[in-house]
């Protein structure tokens, strides 16, 4: 039972444009959401998070949006840079639930 879904396995964008990565979840008890970035042969690195009391959190070029009614969150990267090319994992947890991860979206930013 996959409670966190990233339906796009890959995304390609041009340098300088916006990257939008999407994530859906099914468990309404989740109240804390995170995005991780992972390079090949390395562990995931924490990028940005948002709690359910907010609908937006911004950190430099990265913004996470949360739509609780739709059980949907997205990560916006603007402007995208070639160094952003990596696999991005969405994760969710809360109320005693183990953290659940999506299958990841591979982002490629072309120069």
């Amino acid at each position, binding site marked *: 039972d*996959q409670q*966190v879904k990233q339906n796009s*396995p890959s995304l390609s964008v041009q340098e300088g444009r916006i990257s939008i990565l999407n994530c859906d979840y099914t468990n309404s008890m989740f*109240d*804390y959401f*995170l995005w*991780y970035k992972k390079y090949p*042969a*390395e*562990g*995931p*690195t*924490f990028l940005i*998070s948002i*709690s359910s009391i907010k609908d937006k959190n911004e950190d430099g070029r990265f913004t996470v949006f949360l739509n609780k009614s739709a059980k949907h969150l997205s990560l916006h990267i603007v402007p995208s840079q070639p160094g952003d090319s990596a696999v991005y*994992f969405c*994760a969710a*947890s*809360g*109320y005693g639930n*183990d*953290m*659940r*991860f*999506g*299958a*990841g979206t591979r982002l490629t930013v072309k120069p």
Partner: protein
Amino acid sequence: EADIYQTPRYLVIGTGKKITLECSQTMGHDKMYWYQQDPGMELHLIHYSYGVNSTEKGDLSSESTVSRIRTEHFPLTLESARPSHTSQYLCASSETAEGETQYFGPGTRLLVL
């Protein structure tokens, strides 16, 4: 900056061998986790610990075992490795509080021949 370490980074081993994957963190975190991840798939929780002498099994059935004798150390052992154990193993830690961020080590990529 996360201070969590895993050794070895890569391991190629024959079927039937016993192996131990090491994980250490210097952040004083109570909670530690082991995940298994295959390419294009989500991270699957195989073991976790709330603190010293606490170990729990995760969602994904695993033939591995773990121990937590010291706060900073959470090794994972496979008594008899099989090709089906080939995967990437990721260790993570977090503070105990709800809504915690997990910090990951660099991972161990295991290949069982």
